[in-house]
């Protein structure tokens, strides 16, 4: 496969945001259908929830959390990019502050669990 010739960090962020959104859009109908079973067929829901113990399903759930996180931060990035007329150094500082806060909060989370 040929490398994408015009791939640069902003473009990669753009394509990651789009693809994660597409993935979530495909997942959501299935998600809502499963949730609806709580009302219409609780026994089937319980049987389905049994599956969540399987390693493969856990792996898929990790993928979903990744998609959600990527799409969430991608959306925040896009809103900041378009709505905040910041200069390049201000953007760098904001990104560094977000990364620092994420690092500290992850450390706390890891200590907690």
């Amino acid at each position, binding site marked *: 496969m040929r490398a994408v*010739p*015009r791939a*640069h960090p*902003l*473009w990669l962020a*753009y394509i990651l945001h789009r693809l994660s959104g597409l993935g979530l859009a495909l997942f959501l109908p299935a998600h809502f259908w499963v949730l609806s079973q709580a009302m219409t067929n609780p026994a089937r829901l319980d049987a389905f929830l049994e599956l969540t113990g399987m390693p493969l399903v856990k792996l898929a759930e990790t993928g979903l959390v990744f998609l959600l996180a990527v799409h969430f931060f991608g959306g925040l990035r896009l809103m900041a*990019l*378009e*709505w905040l007329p910041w200069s390049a150094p201000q953007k760098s500082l904001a990104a560094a502050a977000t990364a620092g806060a994420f690092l500290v909060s992850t450390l706390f989370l890891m200590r907690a669990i």
Partner: protein
Amino acid sequence: MTEETTIKVRVQRGTADDTPRFDRFEVPAHDSQTVLDVVSWIQQHADPGLTYRFACRVGMCGSCAMMVNGVPRWTCRTHVRKVLGDAAEIEIRPLRNLPVIKDLAADLDPFFDKWVAAEGRHHPTRTRHDPIAPVDPGSAERAQASAGIECINCAVCYAACDTVTGNPDYLGPAALQRAWTLFNDAKEADRDAILDAVTGPGGCTSCHSMGSCTAYCPNDLDPMSAIAGLKRAAARRYFRKAG
């Protein structure tokens, strides 16, 4: 005497009516050689029929832009050393997102038509008989306007933009940046006309902020931020009217 080394070059040939084909050339390598030097060497020594466009050769006129190894570049200021890297050969094609006239010459009519469609012309506040209006060079608006005035209309941003590829009506980064420059000009009389022109189908809201325009602008301009400015101005106007 040093041994002469050569550069392998693949050049797209043909007119709009042909299926594009590639011709291969071996061009003598030199120090500080630009991609335009390579194209000129081919035209002067290997194939006089090769069609391409250039004028100033010093990065001012914006006429020599081409796709070099998949990336739009001003070829007169792009050194072969920079684009060759580890690649075995250089691939040179006409600018993306534009019709081909012949070989490496793209038809820029759609590009400039969109400058007009984006209301990229000045609406004066005074006539020639009035005194010249003073412009405060330190104002925030002037800083926004000045940020985009060094555009040389090379269409590199237009060729880089995937939104243009997907939406032929999209006005494109250069035209929208021109509109944003005028919008911030103290001597601009009709800002509403500009916002009307850039908020229709294919206007600033079609931009997906992928940033290729800013990444590849040879003059280090930032059309993506200019388009974001238009989006904010359009939103402000919308809420003012609605409120």
